[in-house]
């Protein structure tokens, strides 16, 4: 630029040096070229810009990072109010003040987290308008009415959040507390709609419903109610609870590891337990919701279904199995450590059960992680007769995956029940019968899930999908819904033999909590890539083609790098939010 400026100045100086001759020449050229404007008027206007790009990083990468961070922050901002509200309700109903304190501690994060999420949303919007004007024009044309709804939702959500947070201390007693609980409910109610409105835009891109005629509202409504909208809504809602729970756990884990006194250790140990519990509570139904989503995608379009589950993206699901497997192992490990360290003397009693559960979990994970097409050298592939193993290849299909995921859910549920019952002695006369019934239920459920899984290979796919897989889910849900109230009833009259001791967990428990949170974040980044890549070279599947230079799916290794970057950046942002939100507390604590 500097060089160009110097050149122009030299030119002007040269003109002055020749007695204005040069300036006169320029005027003459300008006048003579005036008729050219008439010709220019006949030339067609320049075509509208369809894409813009930036050097080095690339527009797609930048949008990828910002969109993923916005989505993760949104998951956090929508998950934390659910978590906080549940804790507040528990405090309200049981009178345990520490739950209220926990709820408040997390709601405090919301104001700064909310602003950060909105900031990333704004950046994403500007980037999309700048980089993808053609796509954004198209989407605006269809979704204009829902854009208005979205803005209105933001207004009411913000007002409710301010009332909920700033009114916390003022609304602690009597009817005011009831109103505060109602505000928390409304906060989550509006947040749910804030989540599902943009979900409609994203799911429309994957499974579009386009009306050629009709009013703006009719077209927007048809596009909103597309085949994958509700499966994604439910899946994301549950995933947000999981994210909120595990991030709370990770925060507690870090604070526990850096605790300076017994009081802090007690508090953060307990907080870690609550976070892990809520994370697991959401994790148990999550695979069912994921299965429903995949079923809808496959039914909507065979090409997209196979691209995801059998085609070039199928390896993502092996990575997904590994990450979910670590999450299940981490959550169970934390429960087991809790039994050992918080309830002294329980370890010996439950060690064999823990070993059995661990073996079942590992066997299930082994099946879940076994791909249909194996990575093999030429020699190995020759010996197997291709990349499909003649014996273990049966583990590579959905019937096996559904079976083991259901068994892992059952085992994790039993870990929780075991933790709940540890250190207590049932005194009810019917305790023996109840325990026998629960054991029988669990064994029968396990057998039924395996039988349905094996049988699933010998029936038409639609029978397996519509009846067998659904029955497996119903069996597991039935077990949970039967054993939970039965255990609660049993423990109502139980005698506590060993009091729970907080603050005695080893450091590895804190690390397990951090690991769980990282696994959830990685999972979300992985599935974000899967959802976007399943559209292959379409902005809107089958309707609006991607004609940019980025109309290809990045390789998994490259994608894994961006996923890791997104996970790292998100962790840094969340750490910053926690740091900012707790800064004044720390200052107060040091003054007092």
């Amino acid at each position, binding site marked *: 630029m500097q060089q160009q400026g110097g050149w122009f100045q030299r030119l002007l100086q040269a003109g002055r040096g020749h007695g204005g001759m040069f300036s006169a020449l320029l005027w003459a050229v300008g006048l003579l070229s005036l008729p050219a404007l008439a010709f220019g008027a006949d030339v067609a206007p320049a075509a509208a810009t369809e894409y813009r790009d930036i050097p080095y990083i690339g527009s797609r990468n930048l949008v990828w990072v910002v969109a993923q961070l916005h989505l993760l922050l949104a998951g956090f901002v929508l998950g934390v109010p659910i978590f906080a509200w549940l804790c507040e309700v528990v405090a309200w109903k049981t009178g345990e003040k520490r739950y209220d304190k926990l709820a408040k501690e997390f709601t405090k994060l919301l104001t700064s987290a909310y602003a950060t999420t909105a900031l990333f949303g704004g950046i994403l919007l500007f980037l999309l308008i700048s980089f993808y004007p053609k796509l954004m024009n198209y989407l605006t044309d269809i979704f204009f009415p829902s854009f208005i709804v979205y803005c209105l939702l933001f207004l009411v959500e913000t007002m409710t959040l301010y009332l909920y947070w700033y009114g916390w201390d003022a609304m602690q007693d009597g009817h005011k507390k009831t109103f505060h609980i109602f505000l928390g409910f409304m906060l989550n109610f509006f947040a749910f709609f804030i989540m599902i409105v943009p979900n409609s835009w994203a799911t429309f891109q994957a499974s579009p419903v386009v009306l050629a005629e009709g009013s703006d509202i009719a077209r927007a409504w048809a596009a909103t109610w597309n085949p994958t909208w509700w499966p994604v809504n439910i899946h994301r809602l549950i995933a947000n609870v999981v994210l909120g729970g595990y991030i709370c756990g990770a925060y507690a884990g870090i604070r526990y590891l850096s605790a300076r006194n017994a009081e802090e250790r007690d508090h953060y140990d307990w907080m870690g337990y609550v976070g892990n519990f809520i994370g697991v509570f959401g994790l148990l139904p999550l695979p069912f919701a994921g299965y429903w989503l995949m079923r809808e995608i496959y039914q909507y379009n065979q090409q997209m279904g196979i691209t995801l589950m059998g085609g070039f993206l199928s390896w993502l699901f092996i990575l997904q199995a590994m990450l979910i497997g670590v999450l299940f192992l981490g959550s169970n490990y934390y429960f087991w450590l809790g039994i050992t360290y918080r309830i002294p003397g329980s370890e010996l009693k439950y060690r064999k059960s823990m070993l059995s559960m661990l073996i079942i979990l590992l066997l299930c994970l082994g099946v879940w992680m076994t791909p249909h097409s194996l990575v093999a*050298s030429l020699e190995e592939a020759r010996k197997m007769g291709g990349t499909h193993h003649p014996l273990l290849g049966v583990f590579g299909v959905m019937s096996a995956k559904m079976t083991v995921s259901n068994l892992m859910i059952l085992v994790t549920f039993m870990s929780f029940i075991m933790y709940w019952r540890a250190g207590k002695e049932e005194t009810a006369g019917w305790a023996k019968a109840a325990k026998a019934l629960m054991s029988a239920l669990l064994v029968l459920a396990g057998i039924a899930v395996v039988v349905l899984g094996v049988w699933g290979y010998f029936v038409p796919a639609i029978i397996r999908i519509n009846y067998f897989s659904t029955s497996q889910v119903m069996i597991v849900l039935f077990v949970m819904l039967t054993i939970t109230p039965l255990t609660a009833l049993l423990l109502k009259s139980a005698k506590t033999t060993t009091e729970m001791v907080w603050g005695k967990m080893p450091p590895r428990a804190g690390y397990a909590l951090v690991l769980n949170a990282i696994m959830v974040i990685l999972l979300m980044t992985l599935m974000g890539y899967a959802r976007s890549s399943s559209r292959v070279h379409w902005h809107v599947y089958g309707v609006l083609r991607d004609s940019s230079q980025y109309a290809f799916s990045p390789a998994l290794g490259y994608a894994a790098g961006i996923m890791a970057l997104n996970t790292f950046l998100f962790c840094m942002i969340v750490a910053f939010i926690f740091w900012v939100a707790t800064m004044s507390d720390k200052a107060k604590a040091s003054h007092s």
Partner: protein
Amino acid sequence: MGGSLLKPVILIGIVYAILKFVVPNIPGSAPLPASLIFLYLMLTTSGIVIFATLSGESKDAFWNPIQRFMTGENIGGLQVLRYGVLLLFPLMVGWQTYSSTATSDAPPSENRTIHPAPPGEYTGLSNPVPKTPDTIQQGKGFYAAFCSPCHGGNFDGKGPAARGFNPPPANFSDPTTIAMLQESYLFWRIKKGGVGLPIEGMPWKSAMPRWEVELPDEWIWKIIMGEYDGAHQAPRTWE
């Protein structure tokens, strides 16, 4: 070293032996690729670490001998072994680095997608031929003439010509092959053959002919019906 470390080592050895020598010798099985064995051994190791660190005592029993071996004083004859490990570790890292970067004449690992996604124009198709005993029988006849030399008279992928191919022709009686797919998928595969596969399906690895040059579409649809019926499988449907 103590029994706490010996047991895990023996367990890993047993798991390895089962995967390497027992599983391949089960009738109908084949040797497992190294990638899968590695995966299962990693799981076993994770399980061992998880179980060993469940309590303070078990963690100490598991970890203390390792720590003592690596950093302890007066370990007697194990001192030589410690130096051996200290030498071996960088050598192994060096070997791994060398073997992953050195030029080799070995072909890269194969990661062929068996069921790649079909092109969009095939996804919405349904079989236009009415499913009657006659049409199924005709399909089986066409199958016998055109497909059975490779895919076998029993639909098990063991036709007389099958031995010449690697990968072998698909086994339709295996519930993880055509039973997972819709009829339109088979129509695409038969019509376009191996050369019509996308890159991830490795078109150069399939000897399946492009039957569209020899068979009319109606025959292909009939063959599909005959295949499903003969292999005692049903296509994936949504109703």
